[in-house]
């Protein structure tokens, strides 16, 4: 037994056995709870900053009166029809993108495998634009089209990249994303909108088109989908060990992959239908969540990071330039591009993408 790591064993550990292991297992959970708590507070702060601050500042007492149902000329319209739905849409869309990205990144064991990089979000966007421009769809029809488009892209890139592994899938996906982005531009150029803001929504994402109907629809959909992230996370923890090890531990690998892909695709498509493919949120959330969570992936932390990125990005986009309100996707895109470069350089150096 001389080569065993006896020296590192604290006195009494062998006697305590299970209890000692229990303590070691609790430490990461405790850390995750702290991280989630602090992030939750930060997201709440950003949410209220989005609602209250900006070109039209609302005081907290006024906001509470509005919530109580009071009518305040000017403030009522701006808060109830504009700022509040935008902030809620940002919160929901960010959380949804964050979970979608973390699912794909953990499942394919590569941070580049997020739905916005591999074309799934653009598939949703292109289908939504086609539905609006070609078929005059509105509301739920746009969401259905987005889900359909995202699923078709997911099936297509999986089929095209069959037998080429995770890297093959990512390369095919990047190609699909570029093609679909061109398709969105083409469709919008054929439409008579001519409105730059509409174009921006479907190319890089924006909270400007928020309204209560979109918020309610997305909230209802997430209410159904997000609880599935719990059992999904369990399957992800298995798949993260690699297909063979996971199968050896009794995970049904093909079924788990199928269900997680479906969940990830829907979680990427639904917010896209409401706010466009907000650039790089899905891509950024997972790795940032891991960094905050001591390197371990967590869907809950990724959801909070996603919501935080969109709300912080929107705050900056709306207030950075006086009298100009940029779409949130411009800010998140500007943040995401350097991160993508850094990831490509650093993963190339260490010769692994995960």
């Amino acid at each position, binding site marked *: 037994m001389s080569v065993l790591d006896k020296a590192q064993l604290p006195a009494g550990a062998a006697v305590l056995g299970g209890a000692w292991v229990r303590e070691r297992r609790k430490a990461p959970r405790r850390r995750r709870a702290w991280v989630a708590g602090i992030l939750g507070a930060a997201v709440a702060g950003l949410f209220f900053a989005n609602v209250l601050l900006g070109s039209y500042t609302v005081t907290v007492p006024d906001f509470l009166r509005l919530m109580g149902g009071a009518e305040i000329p000017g403030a009522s319209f701006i808060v109830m029809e504009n700022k509040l739905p935008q902030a809620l849409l940002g919160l929901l869309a960010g959380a949804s993108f964050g979970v979608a990205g973390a699912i794909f990144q953990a499942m394919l064991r590569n941070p580049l495998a997020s739905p916005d990089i591999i074309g799934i979000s653009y598939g949703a966007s292109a289908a939504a634009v086609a539905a609006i421009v070609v078929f005059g769809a509105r509301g739920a029809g746009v969401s259905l089209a987005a889900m359909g488009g995202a699923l078709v892209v997911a099936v297509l890139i999986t089929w095209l990249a069959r037998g080429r592994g995770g890297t093959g899938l990512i390369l095919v996906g990047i190609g699909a994303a570029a093609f679909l982005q061109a398709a969105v531009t083409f469709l919008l150029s054929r439409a008579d909108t001519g409105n730059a803001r509409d174009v921006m929504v479907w190319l890089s994402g924006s909270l400007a088109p928020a309204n209560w109907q979109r918020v309610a629809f997305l909230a209802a959909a997430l209410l159904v989908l997000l609880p599935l992230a719990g059992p999904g996370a369990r399957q992800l923890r298995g798949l993260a060990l690699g297909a063979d090890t996971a199968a050896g531990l009794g995970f049904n690998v093909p079924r788990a992959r199928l269900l997680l892909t479906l969940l990830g695709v829907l979680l990427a498509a639904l917010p896209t239908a409401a706010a466009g493919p907000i650039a790089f949120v899905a891509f950024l959330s997972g790795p940032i969540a*891991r960094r905050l969570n001591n390197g*371990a992936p967590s869907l809950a932390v990724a959801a909070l990071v996603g919501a935080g990125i969109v709300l912080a990005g929107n705050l900056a986009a709306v207030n950075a330039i006086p009298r100009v309100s940029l779409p949130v996707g411009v800010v998140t895109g500007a943040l995401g591009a350097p991160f993508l470069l850094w990831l490509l350089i650093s993963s190339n150096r260490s010769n692994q993408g995960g």
Partner: protein
Amino acid sequence: MALNSHPTRLSARNITLGYAGAPIVQGLSLELPAGKVSYIVGANACGKSTLLRGLARLLSARSGAVLLNGADIHRMPTRALARELGILPQAPTAPEGITVSELVGRGRSPHQGWFRQWTGADDDAVAAALSVTGTLGLAGRTVDELSGGQRQRVWIAMALAQETEVLLLDEPTTYLDLAHQVEVLDVVSELNARRGTTVAIVLHDLNLAARYADHLVAMKAGRVVAEGKPEAVLTAALVREVFGLESVVVPDPVTGTPLVVPLGRRAALLGAGASLAGAPA
């Protein structure tokens, strides 16, 4: 834990295994002796890892069947099977940021489900697995910061935490120095002695396999060319047939099991081959 009075039998009946192209293992039948440790040896690409994957249903047999106590493993629910049969694939990779206790805890997955959550018994199983592999002191560390040897023992701890009656290990000593190789194989032998676990190990090192095996299986080109007690099976003729290597087989000075001493061209150059071939046993 008491010695298992009904050790579990795992056998392959006329199985053909392969990936996209031509079959790698063809019409192979093998019965792992119940409650014993079998070592599977053979040259690179002889199909030994493929056979192990087939035995663990990581690969479906094109024809034939793998039977666990007489039942076809492909008809068993995956989680029920994972409570009976554990496999440690070759060179597994740990997710980034995972701690040792978490990774070993994943070995408890088949014992959990929708209604059966993590319990004290799971903690005890993890502690026991960490303890026998000498990794209890690493429980709070992340796997990324471990050395290759420590990491391999942690993976074996994960397979042990699964508490299966059959354990299949694919090259469990990869990346380990000699001391740790011996350590790992000792751990497996102790487990077998204590619990009566039926074990099959694919191993590159013929001499270690001969020393530790109750039952030695030699493979060539997807079929079994010899099997039995190492003393009965491992001869210079077998080494020539399986590895295409000229050697002298002498008794291991420590255990008396066969020890393969390769001749090699350098020994011949030095003129040592003749004297070795005639060396006293």
